[in-house]
């Protein structure tokens, strides 16, 4: 593909990123740097020198780092079992793993604490209010990222390479270390960097489970912006966040670039197999991980069924109402419909932009400068994950406030914002796979008279097909569960489900709280249903392969 074509393809996503991420962030940071219209760099530097800022930064990095390691360690066995073994109910489990990803942090925080408080079922562990609880919750939320990213790569990995190693005398562990993990490294690094960004910028979890004792850069920005109106400090921290994120992305990019290569893909082979006895350990570990994921969810379900001192579906029936004392402007069911529509829009947008970015970024130009440019581009599109939702949300208010971009009160902002959050996930899912397509196959197709579109359809699509569906499902799930940016942007008469859940939780009344739990369960079930449908579709198409 010619450089000019690449630039044209990248233009749309770049404009979107510029308008909806860079501009708002620049607006907020600009206000912080020039509080009274004059540039005041010294003030910003002073903020960065505060011991509290150092503490906060350090906690952010180590908690997110540990959570990332934990998520990868917990996610790999699950990815193996769900994507390499063949058994009944596999699709359902794959969909189930995604459930935590969309659960509202507020509600999961409550569910976690219900388990962990001294009087709760896991009270004996004495984890309430500890960093361990925060990290566990981060793992809980992000497990799906690792399982799905690594899983879809793993599913396409030719089993025979591992078999060759085993036949040469490598024990299962040695095969894993010397053959499988190196092949999975691009996917793992991809997933890990996404998880790290999610952890480093999560604030609902930290606030709820940390009991204010632990502050991260994100919670600090939140407090500084929404409570103290200390824009200077907030700007300093936002900038710090961006620098840290950029450094991380650069490192991840380097690791990935050195590891990616065309894979011998088992396109015509089914890489899965029946479980064997020696899979017992990994299956057991997976069972344990899934049980730990299920525990908070189960708590949620149980509490949603608890009406007063009896059991029943009362809270679910209440979802057709606006809550006790008219807590909401619209019934929860309407919010669910809104969420659905917004998610469809956001998914379409995220996929459109994501595919464009992935196609551009996955090329391997000969010229060094071009390669550099592409890798920078690649990282740039990860930024939305690493930038504070608070900063972006407030940034929208201060920058998109006059024609021709008076979008502040426009309903299109919600799907756009969600698409920007989903975009990095889409890109990260697609790029490793697209990169692994042997370029000569594209050349062969082109030489046979295929137009570039035709090449994409006949060479890339068959390979990317699975990850494409995975990414679509992922984008959909992200959109369904997105709360941070949405809470700043959603229209009061058209709230999404997580926004409504948040409103319910913050109102007094047992009914409202019960409805919040019931609505969370519904949100989770809808996600599982959508994901299971995606998995089914995928299987149907595999039959034609």
């Amino acid at each position, binding site marked *: 593909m010619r450089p000019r074509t690449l630039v044209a393809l990248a233009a749309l996503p770049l404009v979107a990123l510029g308008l909806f991420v860079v501009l708002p962030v620049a607006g907020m940071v600009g*206000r912080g740097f020039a509080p009274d219209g004059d540039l005041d760099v010294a003030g910003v530097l002073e903020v960065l020198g505060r011991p509290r800022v150092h503490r906060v930064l350090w906690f952010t990095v180590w908690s997110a780092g540990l959570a990332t390691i934990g998520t990868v360690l917990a996610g790999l066995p699950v990815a193996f079992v769900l994507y390499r073994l063949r058994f009944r109910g596999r699709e359902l489990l794959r969909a189930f793993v995604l459930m935590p990803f969309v659960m509202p942090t*507020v509600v999961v*925080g*409550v569910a976690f*604490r*219900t388990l962990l*408080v*001294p*009087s*709760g079922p896991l009270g004996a562990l004495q984890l309430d209010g500890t960093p361990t609880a925060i990290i566990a919750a981060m793992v809980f939320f992000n497990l799906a990222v690792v399982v799905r990213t690594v899983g879809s790569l793993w599913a396409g990995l030719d089993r025979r390479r591992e078999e060759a190693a085993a036949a040469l005398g490598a024990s299962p562990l040695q095969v894993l270390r010397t053959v499988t993990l190196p092949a999975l490294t691009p996917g793992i690094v991809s997933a890990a960097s996404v998880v790290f960004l999610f952890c480093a910028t999560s604030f609902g979890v930290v*606030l709820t489970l*940390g*009991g*204010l*004792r632990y502050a991260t850069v994100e919670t600090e920005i939140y*407090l500084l*912006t*929404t*409570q*103290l*109106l*200390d824009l200077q400090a907030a700007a300093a921290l936002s900038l710090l966040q961006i620098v840290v994120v950029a450094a991380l992305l650069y490192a991840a990019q380097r690791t990935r670039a050195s590891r990616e290569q065309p894979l011998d893909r088992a396109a015509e082979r089914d890489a899965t197999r029946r479980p064997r006895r020696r899979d017992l350990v990994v299956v057991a570990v997976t069972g344990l991980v899934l049980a730990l994921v299920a525990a908070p969810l189960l708590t949620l379900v149980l*509490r949603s069924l*608890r009406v*007063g001192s009896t059991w029943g579906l009362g809270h679910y029936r209440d979802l057709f109402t606006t809550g006790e*004392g*008219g*807590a909401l*402007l619209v019934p929860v069911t309407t919010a669910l419909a809104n969420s659905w*529509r917004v998610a*469809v*829009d956001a998914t*379409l947008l995220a996929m459109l932009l994501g595919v464009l970015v992935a196609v551009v970024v996955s090329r391997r130009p000969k010229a060094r400068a071009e390669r550099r440019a592409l890798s920078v581009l690649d990282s740039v599109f990860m930024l939305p994950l690493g930038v504070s939702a608070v900063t972006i949300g*407030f940034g929208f*208010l*201060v920058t998109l*406030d*006059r024609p021709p971009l008076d979008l*502040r*009160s*426009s*309903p*299109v902002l*919600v799907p756009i914002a969600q698409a920007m959050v989903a975009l990095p996930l889409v890109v990260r899912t697609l790029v490793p796979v697209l990169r692994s397509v042997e370029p000569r196959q594209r050349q062969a197709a082109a030489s046979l008279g295929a137009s570039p579109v035709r090449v994409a*359809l*006949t060479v890339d699509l*068959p390979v990317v097909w699975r990850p*494409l569906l995975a990414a*679509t499902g992922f984008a959909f799930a992200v959109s369904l569960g997105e709360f941070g940016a949405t809470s700043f942007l959603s229209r009061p008469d058209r709230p999404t489900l997580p926004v409504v859940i*948040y*409103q319910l*939780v*913050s*109102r*007094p009344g*047992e009914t409202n*709280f019960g409805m919040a739990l019931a609505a969370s369960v519904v949100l989770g079930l809808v996600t599982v249903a959508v994901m299971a449908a995606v998995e089914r579709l995928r299987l149907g*198409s595999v039959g*034609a*392969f």
Partner: protein
Amino acid sequence: MHARRALTTAPLTLSLAVCLAATAACSVGGGTTEQATGPDGATKTVVVATHDSWAMSKKVLRQFTAETGYTVKVEPNGDAGQLTNKLVLTQGSPIADMAYGIDNTFASRAVDEGVLADYSPADLPASASSYALPDTVEAQQLTPVDYGDVCVNVDDTWFAKHGVTPPKTLDDLTNPAYKGLFVTPGASSSSPGLAFLLATVAKYGDAWPTYWKKLMANDTLITSGWSDAYEVDFTAGGGGGDRPIVLSYASSPPFTIPKGASRPTTSALLDTCFRQVEYAGLLKGAKNPKGAQAFIDFMEQKSFQEALPDNMYVFPVDQDAALPTDWAKFAKVAPKPFTVPPADIAKNRDTWLREWSDVTTR
């Protein structure tokens, strides 16, 4: 050959189907953003920026439209702090015509930053003046609408069952008899939490950090939000928690009346309360100042005032407004709530919160 064909068409068909379904469902872009305008071309919509706790019955709002011809469009913007900060950030290009929900802890910031225009309704209820802001400039811009008392609540059933006398005052909370029984949302992340901090500031003056040290020594639990404290840790909150003393509202007890019973199982300690007053004000640069003024006037009328308790769990500033039966019986108002002058709050908030974080963070 057939297999290859299937290979490429299956995804295509599906993408097509998804696109179609999506376009059919895609309706977010269009819709109700157009503003209703009257025959004279003037806008007939009043945009109200509020906090997320806004709730008002449709009947009352329809009455406003019937009386004035204006329709109300509500824009919730987070909690009182976020609301105020958003108004500050967007001044010059305001997001609404008027604001409701700025409370006495944020009033000074809103006024100082100059986001509000002068307006005060001509006929305020007599009792409203006692809730007005002390500063005259501030009082001209912000009209009191309602108030709520943030008080320590206790689970009477728990205390009766354990044969312990419930606490009564702030001092009691540091008594070893109540060790590990109190849970409160944090001041830096929750508006009732901040109110409680201000209550202790009002009570103990500069010595408030000493009180908080004692509270922490008595194993007080701090959560991030009110719902977390009430729904998870409070024994009467439905979450099966293990702390029978919680920071909540004076209006909370009526919600704990069991089905079929006539009395709540919890009560508010009226000597521990901080009063939050919520105000309405006209925004500088409003597109529809006339409509906004009409709505501020309307908020002071009986129909709106009497609807406040059931919709937003707050007390009307008009003492002649009738209260719901349960409220009249069980939701008591603190006779002498703690107060801190809004100007002092504006001046010291950052310092207090930072000190508070230092004391409560181990």
